[in-house]
């Protein structure tokens, strides 16, 4: 098999990080919206559940990422918004790094495949 479960998991992780990036961008855009409740994407949880199942490949293929309202935080602002700008920025930086890590591992694996096929590799 050309693309194995690990490659599929990496692809899903990149997709999950992209969806999460959108959710975090929406939180920052809505920082001044009264009563706004922050959204987040638990793609780690979804991926961990898929990796723990008996048929990983099909579970990973079926894994979708939907942003959900984060109910773990209370209002941090007087207008009822649950957006803490510093924490959003920190989450966004961490998320971007995670995505880059997944991309780099995926790239390395693809270059190994290329080398095996007879290409130049990198």
């Amino acid at each position, binding site marked *: 098999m050309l693309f194995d479960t690990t490659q599929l998991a990496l692809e899903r992780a990149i997709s999950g990080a992209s969806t999460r990036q959108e959710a975090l961008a929406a939180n*920052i855009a809505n920082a*001044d919206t009264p009563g706004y409740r922050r*959204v987040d994407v638990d793609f780690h949880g979804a991926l961990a559940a898929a990796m723990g199942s008996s048929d990983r490949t099909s579970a990973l293929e079926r894994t979708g990422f939907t*942003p959900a309202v984060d109910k773990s935080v209370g209002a941090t602002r007087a207008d009822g918004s649950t957006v803490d700008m510093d924490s959003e920025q920190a989450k966004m*930086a961490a998320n971007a790094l995670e*995505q880059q890590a997944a991309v780099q591992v995926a790239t390395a694996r693809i270059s190994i495949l290329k080398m095996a096929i007879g290409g130049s590799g990198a």
Partner: protein
Amino acid sequence: MSMFGGLEISASGLTAQRLRMDVTAENLANAQTTKGADGQPYRRKEVVLREISQGGGFGAQLANALGTGAKSRPGGVEVAEIASDQTAGKMVYDPSHPDANAQGYVQMPNVDTVTEMVDLIDSSRAYEANVTAMQASKQMFTKTLDLLK
């Protein structure tokens, strides 16, 4: 699902924050305007923002209202209204002013320059935060494109 969702969301934030800065500038410019088109002193304006809800359907609306919500996709931000502040302004004693009343007091606009400056800094910082988010989104797209190399 559009490919550049994150960029569009941050762009809506930039638009909203820029409008806030424009309105703050208008308030500051009119801090001494004692007579507007309606003959009344200027009233400070305030931008009210709201979230763009992507899930237009009944189910999504209900889930949002109940807060149980698996939202379909995060939306950006939009301007709900530009409200005018109805609090009364200061009365300033200046009998020579053409708009002074019989007792010599002039009704000034309800613009407090300190409040406006704080709003200006707030919207300016929020604008920067959206720019940073936009750069992060762009960087992520670029990194993903590197997979094709």
